[in-house]
């Protein structure tokens, strides 16, 4: 079984007993993948850059934040911006050579990058805790990283959710859901404004015809770098949310599968629409998790496999018959050689 599916399954199935908390966790994953896919939307949908390294950027964001807080001892206010800066730096470092490559080479190179990050996380035990997760144990003992979040989460629960009756064990994850989706919404609005600016129009021009954009005196390479840098920074946020959710950090959560699923979310919602990403991630995750509810008399392994068979078929059929996605515009789905 694929490892990411595993971690997701474990994360979700413990809450499966009560329906509310199950769907809240589904909503949390939908939100995290939504954040990841917003970055992809900027790269793929608006710039024509096939970034397949999103899982790697997410890993750098998650690990750097945890290491800065737990090992270095920084406060949240210092660690999170610094972690984002590191991730953006990684994005630029990858982009510097990779963005000169043809788009299919770029896809392969960025996957290779994300796997190098993951294998480093797995093997550099002193730094990351590796597979055994000594960093996880530290997280549990010191709780430096999670405690401020737990406090904030309790505050949200007591002051905002209790008064409207959303309290108790069922809604323990509600504050995280709230924060993730508020962030997701804010990012979607911010990015929409950004691509409507003159800067965004240059991005689209590069996507449509890079040579023409160059001929008009635009430095296409620099714009692509900016697009990739922003996307990496957004992936860092998704990484932090993943740590808040799991209260641990494990390399298995950053397999290429994560990037592929984010692409499924992206094309389901449709290219060149940030609102589409929000709709896409809700449809995708509720479809994927809803399949659990249908009782076919299968064992756990078969249910997990079946869900990913359906995800694969959705991707194939979508690309064959409705490449513009549910909400996208067909004329924006031109990505040739």
């Amino acid at each position, binding site marked *: 079984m694929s490892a990411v599916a595993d971690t997701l399954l474990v994360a979700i199935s413990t809450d499966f007993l009560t329906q509310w908390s199950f769907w809240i966790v589904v909503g949390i994953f939908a939100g995290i993948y939504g954040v990841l896919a917003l970055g992809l939307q900027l790269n793929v949908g608006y710039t024509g850059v096939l970034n397949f390294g999103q899982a790697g950027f997410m890993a750098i964001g998650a690990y750097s934040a945890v290491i800065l807080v737990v090992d270095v001892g920084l406060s949240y206010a210092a660690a999170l911006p610094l972690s984002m800066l590191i991730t953006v730096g990684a994005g630029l470092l990858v982009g510097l050579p990779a963005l000169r490559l043809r788009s*299919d080479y770029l*896809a392969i190179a960025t996957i290779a990058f994300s796997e190098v990050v993951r294998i*480093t996380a*797995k093997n550099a035990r002193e730094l990351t805790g590796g597979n055994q997760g000594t960093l996880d144990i530290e997280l549990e003992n010191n709780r430096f990283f999670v405690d401020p979040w737990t406090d904030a989460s309790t505050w949200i629960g007591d002051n905002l959710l209790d008064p409207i009756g959303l309290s108790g064990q069922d809604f323990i994850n509600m504050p995280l859901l709230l924060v993730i989706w508020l962030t997701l919404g804010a990012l979607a609005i911010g990015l929409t404004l950004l691509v409507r600016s003159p800067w965004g129009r240059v991005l689209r021009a590069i996507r449509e015809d890079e040579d023409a954009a160059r001929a008009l005196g635009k430095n296409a390479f620099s714009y692509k770098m900016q697009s990739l840098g922003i996307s990496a920074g957004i992936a860092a946020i998704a990484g932090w949310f993943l740590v808040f959710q799991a209260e641990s950090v494990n390399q298995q959560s950053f397999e290429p599968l994560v990037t592929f699923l984010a692409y499924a979310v992206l094309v389901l919602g449709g290219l060149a629409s940030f609102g589409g990403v929000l709709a896409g991630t809700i449809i995708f995750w509720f479809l994927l998790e809803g399949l659990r509810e249908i009782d076919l008399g299968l064992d756990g392994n078969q249910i*997990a496999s079946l869900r990913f068979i359906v995800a694969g078929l959705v991707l194939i059929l979508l*690309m064959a018959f409705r*490449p513009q996605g549910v909400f996208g515009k067909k004329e924006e789905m031109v*990505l040739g050689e």
Partner: protein
Amino acid sequence: MPAGMEASSIAAANGATPWQRARRFADENPAGIFLAIMALVGTALAATQGLDDFGQRTINGFVNGSSIALGAIGLTLVYGILRLTNFAHGDMLTAGAYIALLFNLTLELPFILSLLIAVAAMAALGVILELVMWRPMRKRKAGMLQLLLMTIGLAFVLRNVVQFFAGADPKSLDVNVTDSYFFLDLSIGRTQLYVLITAMLVLLAVATLLRVTSLGRQMRALADNFDLAETTGVDTGRVVIWTWVLAAGLAGLAGVLLGASGGSINPNFGFQLLLSLFAAVVLGGIGNAYGALAGGLVIGLAQEWSTLVIDSIWKEAVSFIVLIIVLLVRPQGIFGSSRSL
């Protein structure tokens, strides 16, 4: 290389600094330079780590590398001819290995027969997918991203259909895992030796097919320039079908051989190999079948040699690093020409 280029480069070489001349030499003989580097690294490793250790890793490297090469040839042919970056190719190795497993373990057929059935079944699957997916999509002039994501969807389906029926736990083919042959201070398992011989013979056969048969020449013509080949009367539909027979059949064979020599398989093993296959393909120049053959052997060797100097936990990262370095330094590969970019 075009004849005119030589004259122009000689002219340009006049008055160049030695460094520029060396660079030009490297640009024009990439394969030779690369071979020299490999030989140099090999000699250095043999000298510092001992001949026995080095020899043993080299044997292991050839066993793995020859199977990787088999997988990489199909990947590169499909890319060269159809411009399809097939992310499902690794999972085609998995599917082949599990089909062999089904016949070998569940139906208790001999291993060789199971292998042949798996290769035939994968070749048939390749043709079916061409007819129901790839040909209709080409007719619609599907974009690169569209096709790429379809291959990712197909990868999900293949891997999880395997897992649905076979489960996620590692499984082993019924092959001899105990007998070994010894020569000097080196050893090779009997199965590994058979795998190496089979893979090498098939690689030789494929190289011959591509070089001397009319079909092979047509495949290379299509990889070179699809439209031009079509204009000059090549029956492209037929050649594409045979390309899939070859690519998918070889993927199945590579999967079974890797499963046999590696000891066990799980539904993820093909996907985990995908980047090694890409590394072999890019190293040899994407679309170049001979390049993929050489690239596969190099990747196999590089992975095994790396264990002489660094902890073997990093072995799986070696092919990714090779891939990244090649993409940075020479994206057209060691056999490719810069015009193919």
